[in-house]
């Protein structure tokens, strides 16, 4: 008996000669908010469509709550989808849209009416039941799409970039709303997005995909703090990537010969990349006292950029140009272009990834 809400084992999907998804293993727990994150064309939407039943895997198997579903058509799966374009039926009003699934399942008229009303109230659209979807704003359409899926009480809700078409403010508000909603209804959400911020703020766990492969699965902080590969490190947030050579399991040598600490499992002598986030770096004047135990590299400030709440420094070091992010606090020391400085950071902030 399998316990996971959704489980994929060795799933691949080919369109002609091109693989959209390769050999994917994934288990999503019941009640989890799981995001698939990756650039466009990485295979995340194809994966979602296989779970929904719009595409069938070329190889591998797929279970939903322990039931093999790989080749089951979409209408026989206990999942519902919120489409990127919402795909609301334009010839039906809001109420008819929401009631569609229940009518197909032959739920009684009274129960249907009740559940539709409840679903619409839940998304605060009870007053627009008679409206045509084309009369609604983007945000309202999004909520109708949500209500239309949730009213069926699916075991798993699939969301394909549902906030992609909304403007920034609305998107941020909806992120919170979605998360709250998910916690309230307790349904498993599988959320596809290319927006790392969305994924980080909402998800219980994230799967990062590229070129059809699932590169890393983990909680948001794991993905952010401990990227397992250069791609994940680069894709999520801002990061400095410096070429390095492994010295031993605890240190690497940067270009210019500087050895810094950072744990790695790679063989000594192998070529790796050292990754460190700009906000974990600190910038000191060349004569300032620096606490022991920090990694250090000397360099010259090339540029300082003002962002209001933060400053960014581009610092030219023998290991490469390094970006440093410093908060704009009262009394902070400003460094000018041309100034000789030392970039320092705690070794725990160093991640060594193999290429």
């Amino acid at each position, binding site marked *: 008996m399998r316990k996971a809400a959704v489980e994929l084992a060795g799933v691949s999907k080919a369109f002609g000669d091109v693989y959209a998804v390769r050999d994917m293993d994934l288990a999503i727990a019941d009640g989890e908010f799981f995001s698939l994150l990756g650039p466009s064309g990485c295979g995340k939407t194809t994966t979602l469509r296989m779970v929904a039943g719009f595409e069938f895997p070329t190889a591998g198997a797929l279970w939903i709550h322990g039931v*093999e579903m790989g*080749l089951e058509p979409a209408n026989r799966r206990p999942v519902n989808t919120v489409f990127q374009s919402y795909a609301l039926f*334009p010839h039906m009003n809001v109420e008819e849209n929401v009631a569609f699934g229940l009518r197909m399942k032959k739920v009684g008229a009274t129960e249907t009416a009740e559940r539709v009303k409840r679903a619409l109230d839940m998304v605060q659209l009870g007053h627009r039941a008679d409206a045509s979807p084309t009369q609604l704003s983007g945000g309202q359409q999004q909520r109708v799409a949500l209500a239309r899926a949730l009213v069926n009480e699916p075991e798993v809700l699939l969301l394909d970039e549902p906030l992609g078409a909304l403007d920034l403010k609305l998107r941020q508000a909806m992120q919170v709303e979605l998360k709250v909603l998910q916690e309230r209804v307790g349904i498993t959400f599988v959320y596809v997005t290319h927006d790392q911020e969305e994924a980080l703020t909402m998800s219980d766990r994230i799967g990062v995909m590229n070129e059809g492969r699932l590169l890393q699965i983990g909680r948001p902080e794991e993905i952010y703090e401990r990227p397992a590969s250069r791609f994940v490190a680069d894709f999520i947030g801002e990061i400095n990537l410096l070429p390095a050579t492994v010295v031993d399991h605890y240190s690497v040598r940067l270009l210019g010969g500087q050895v810094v600490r950072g744990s790695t499992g790679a063989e000594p002598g192998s070529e790796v990349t050292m990754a460190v986030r700009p906000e974990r770096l600190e910038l000191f004047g060349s004569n300032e006292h620096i606490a022991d135990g920090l990694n250090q590299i000397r360099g010259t400030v090339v540029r300082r950029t003002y962002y209001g709440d933060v400053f960014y420094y581009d610092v030219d070091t023998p290991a490469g140009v390094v970006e440093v992010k410093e908060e704009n606090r009262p009394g902070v020391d400003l460094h000018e272009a041309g100034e000789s400085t030392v970039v320092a950071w705690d070794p725990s902030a160093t991640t060594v990834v193999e290429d």
Partner: protein
Amino acid sequence: MALPETAAPELELDSRRAESRRGFLIGLPAWAYLTIFFALPLVIVLVYSFATRSSTGRTQLTGWNLDSYRRLVDPFVFEVFQRSFFLALTTTLICLLVSYPFAYYIATRGARLRNILLVMVMIPFWSNFLVRTYAWKVLLGSDGPISQLSQALGGEPIRLLFTNTAVLIGLVYGFLPFMVLPLYAALERMDWSLVEAARDLYADGWTAFRKVTWPLSRPGVIAGSILVFVPALGAYVTPAILGGARTTLVGDYIVDQFLAARNQPFGSALSMGIMLVLLAATVIYFRSGAKEV
């Protein structure tokens, strides 16, 4: 975890095959119908185009030859094709220019009004073709309302009848619904929120039209253009009645081969020629259309 043997490649292939089979089966009735009642008869014409006309106008199914095709490369035939081609092209362009705003107007009305307006387009065409064309003769004649209006305004009597303008008016009139219907079908369910979104972004109505409405209505434009261009190329009754048949067009040239000269082989070869030209023209049209989108 062992790989389960379900959902193996063959099974997915099976499901894709099932999907293909479903599509094939949906098309099958029409396919079978057209094969029996169109493709097979077409083969007869193809065969005839290689045959010889007997002295009584029967088609002799012996002594196959390419004579009819040789006649196709005559400069006169080319001239006839060319003339018909430009007439059809002009007709199509005028139809498009008139129909687009018209279909747009209908498509943006309320649902009930929309249906009434659409049917009102078709009603005139359920009368008789010949009678409609004769009615145009009355309108365009030297005693017709246009001429009388001109005289009332102190001008000369105007006779449009037997001119190229009259032919164009007649053709546009006859084929306008063929353009309006597909355009309407394409515009009717246009997502107006897209247009509004575009107006939001571009602010200017013309740009919104060019960037959103027009590309989205393209399938309708293409279908309509074909439905007008093709019959306009073969038209012969309208040019005869309103234009006085003063020049030879492809349509009446072919009709004359079958009905006056009873030269079925040459008529068949001409038909094959016109079909090839039209196929080529539409393929080019589709290609260029696909690129522009």
